[in-house]
């Protein structure tokens, strides 16, 4: 590993045996062509469609309308509200999932057999698709046939749980809670793995020094899990950012747009309303945001540095 990744492999001094059996660029072509057509071309098409009027009907091809769709970006209050909803959901999702999955994951990493068994039960929501989770919780939250009907008997009628989906604040709260239920088992698993990798000696040394449990958590466990926390937080942000099916099935963006995040907004105003041009504007905004997230992701997890270690050896 003398050469750095940025200078690339030194191909002048090596040859013969070093080159034998190495794949050429052609090996990557089928995948690259396929990926370019179905994943990269759509990015360009999104930009093109954002300057057109297009209602998704083959007989009426996209018609160029200049900046008409883009000018709505600044004046559409519903869109601005969606951006707010998206950011609120991301903040609340991280604020709830991070502490719960971190604490549960570290707890489950303990040596007791019981904990491993319980950890397997925590895993159950991961067997369900988001659509299945959404339908299950929609039924549980149903005011007449779900848990609220039971709670009405205990807490009296018209308590806070009676109509969770009726008010934007409680509907958002329910969505965040369902995220927590459905997604935190994955992060628990990640933290469990991370905590198991912390060298036992560190805790032994701390015990000798008289550090208590809380002190050990904050001065050993947390710092040692720093990379895990970064990775898992980014996964939470990406997951929340692109959630669509939960909102479509549970609230359809309601009440009065209070739970309409950007992907749902794009579907609702673009696909359902047959306004694919404006939907493409939202798509371009989403792609730009996703790219920012990606840059952070690549930096934080150092995926790009992995390339330097073995490539071209």
């Amino acid at each position: 590993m003398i050469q750095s990744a940025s200078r690339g492999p030194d191909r002048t001094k090596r040859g013969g045996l070093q080159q034998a059996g190495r794949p050429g660029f052609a090996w990557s072509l089928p995948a690259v062509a396929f990926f370019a057509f179905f994943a990269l071309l759509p990015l360009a098409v999104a930009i093109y469609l954002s300057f057109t009027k297009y209602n998704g009907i083959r007989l009426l091809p996209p018609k160029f309308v200049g900046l008409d769709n883009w000018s709505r970006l600044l004046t559409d209050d519903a869109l601005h509200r969606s951006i707010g909803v998206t950011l609120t959901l991301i903040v609340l999702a991280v604020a709830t999932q991070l502490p719960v999955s971190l604490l549960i994951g570290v707890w489950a990493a303990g040596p007791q057999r019981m904990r491993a068994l319980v950890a397997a039960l925590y895993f159950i929501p991961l067997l369900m698709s988001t659509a299945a989770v959404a339908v299950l919780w929609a039924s549980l939250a149903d005011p007449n046939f779900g848990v609220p009907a039971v709670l009405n008997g205990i807490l009296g009628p018209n308590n806070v749980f009676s109509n969770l989906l009726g008010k934007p604040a409680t509907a958002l709260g329910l969505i965040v809670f369902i995220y927590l239920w459905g997604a935190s088992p994955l992060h628990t698993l990640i933290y469990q793995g991370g905590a198991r990798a912390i060298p036992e000696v560190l805790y032994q040394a701390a015990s000798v020094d008289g550090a208590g449990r809380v002190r050990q958590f904050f001065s050993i466990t947390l710092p040692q899990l720093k990379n895990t926390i970064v990775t898992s937080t980014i996964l939470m942000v990406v997951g929340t950012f692109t959630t669509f099916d939960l909102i479509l099935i549970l609230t359809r963006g309601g009440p009065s747009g209070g739970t309409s995040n950007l992907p749902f907004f794009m579907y609702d105003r673009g696909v359902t309303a047959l306004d694919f041009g404006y939907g493409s504007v939202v798509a371009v905004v989403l792609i730009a945001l996703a790219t920012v997230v990606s840059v952070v992701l690549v930096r934080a997890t150092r995926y790009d540095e992995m390339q330097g270690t073995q490539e071209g050896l």
Partner: protein
Amino acid sequence: MHTRTRPNWIAGIFAGIWLLIILVPVYVMLRASFESRATYAQKGPLALPSEFTLGNFAYAFDQGFGKFLLNSGIVAIGTVLIVLVLVPPLSFAIVRSRSRSVGVVFRLMLFGLAIPAQVVVIPVFYLIDRIGLYDSLLGVILPTAAFIIPLATLIVSGGMREISNELYEAMAIDGATSVQTFFRLVLPLSKGGLATIIVFSALNAWNGYLLPLVLTRSADLRVATLGLGVFKQEFSLNIPGLMAAIVMTVLPILLIYIFARRALIRGLMGVGGK
């Protein structure tokens, strides 16, 4: 943590409460799915089990769930096949090729990691419609597979990097071509990574919602996730029927969990936020 023998009661209680929060909805789902509508309406969601009927599963089947599950299976298998054919050669090139262009390809994959399929559903619809694949399962499979390629490539190439240089040199001394090296050395040593991407791709395809929603229209092309959404829309009062339908969509994943637990967990880690 062996040194800390004193039991941690606070953590234990918190873990227990969390376990209840996880399990109660699962219990409600399982119990309701085996109970008639009348019993469920009378006893509510939280009662103890008092009846056993398979009527809800028969009902879900009548609503087309057999067909929906089959469609999901076709989409999952198709996606896995495409990923399996395309990703290993690409990963091999990324890890072993000396070509500068391959470095560009690797960066492209890192960029692709960021684009979730949902975000580009409108332009994907436009493309799929233009090539005449709108309202077909193949039209769902192709973009689903494309968006899996970046992460699958990272997983598989990560495994291929672990293959030692001596093994490659031994192949080279035997005069092996790149094709022989690939099939006799690289593929057999990449089994773990391949198992992971099989499960990862299948889960991704199985859980997909927005792509099939926008790219298909016919009721008999519905995948299971869409079927659940429509079922909830039309029969939200039949909770036992809905729960049975959910259980049916969970069963295939449960089978993977039982038979390929390690690959499933690694596949899930790749999924990230779903």
